[in-house]
């Protein structure tokens, strides 16, 4: 359990690390080119992992709805946005605002898709996040 907890924390560290490395590349190139290298190098790495571990085409991926295949284009813009933002507002602010956006849009998506949830927790959670964004947004200390 401790091992898995450490791995989960490490995954978060790697998300931040990856964004910083891509941001450094964008400083010398551009956010678009940085996202390109992130994707092409990641593709090579995962292809290698698939060759080693096998089972890439296991299951019934052909039965997935067509829109489930749209993650790539969205991810390309997402990585470019992170690479563009991190030298401008810093790693912590970039991460924090992305998390805020992810959480609030997640609640909206759940409501749109009709996923059951606890309405009180959703209201409290979104209110806390909006309050945090208001604090972050007021620039004067």
């Amino acid at each position: 359990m401790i091992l898995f907890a450490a791995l989960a924390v490490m995954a978060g560290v790697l998300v931040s690390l990856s964004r910083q490395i891509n941001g450094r590349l964008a400083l010398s190139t551009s956010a678009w080119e940085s996202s390109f290298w992130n994707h092409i190098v990641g593709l090579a790495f995962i292809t290698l992992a698939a060759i080693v571990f096998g089972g890439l085409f296991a299951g019934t991926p052909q039965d997935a709805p067509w829109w489930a295949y749209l993650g790539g284009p969205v991810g390309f813009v997402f990585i470019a946005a992170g690479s563009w933002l991190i030298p401008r507002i810093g790693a912590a602010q970039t991460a924090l605002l992305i998390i805020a956006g992810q959480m609030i849009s997640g609640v909206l998506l759940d409501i749109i898709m009709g996923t059951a949830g606890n309405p009180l927790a959703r209201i409290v959670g979104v209110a806390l996040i909006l309050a945090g964004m208001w604090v972050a947004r007021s620039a004067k200390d």
Partner: protein
Amino acid sequence: MSDPARPSHPLLFAAAFGAGGLLSLMVLFNGTLAGYGSLLFSSWVPHLTGSILAIVILLALRPRRASKTRPPLWAYLGGVAGGVTVMLTSATMNSALALSGTIALGLAGQMVFSLFADIRGLFGLPQRMPKPRDYLALALIIAGSLVLIFLGGAP
């Protein structure tokens, strides 16, 4: 240390928040794909289609390089860190941590390392000292996220 840029510029603020919305869509799309195919497949496909779109965009926009000096070679390896992330989370999601524990601990690791990187100015990025206000914003947003992750599901 020069005056640290803050996300007070509405465009930067909106872009970061909007990027979080894109991340939600990615999680929905890639997660749905993982429900039908393997976890490797659900990461391999978006990297493949993302690379194809990237080539089209680069050919169409031909963005100029910001600097004539070549970036260090390690700056090209961000995608490897992303690939390892997928493998780690696919292991922890299937442990007792489940998805909620994986996300919550991932947020913790992400924020602690981001603050550390800002304070030290790691990887050639500008150094920044967080102010008390930043820690308050962090506490509120992480608290709200934890409420949604652990209590937001169906009662």
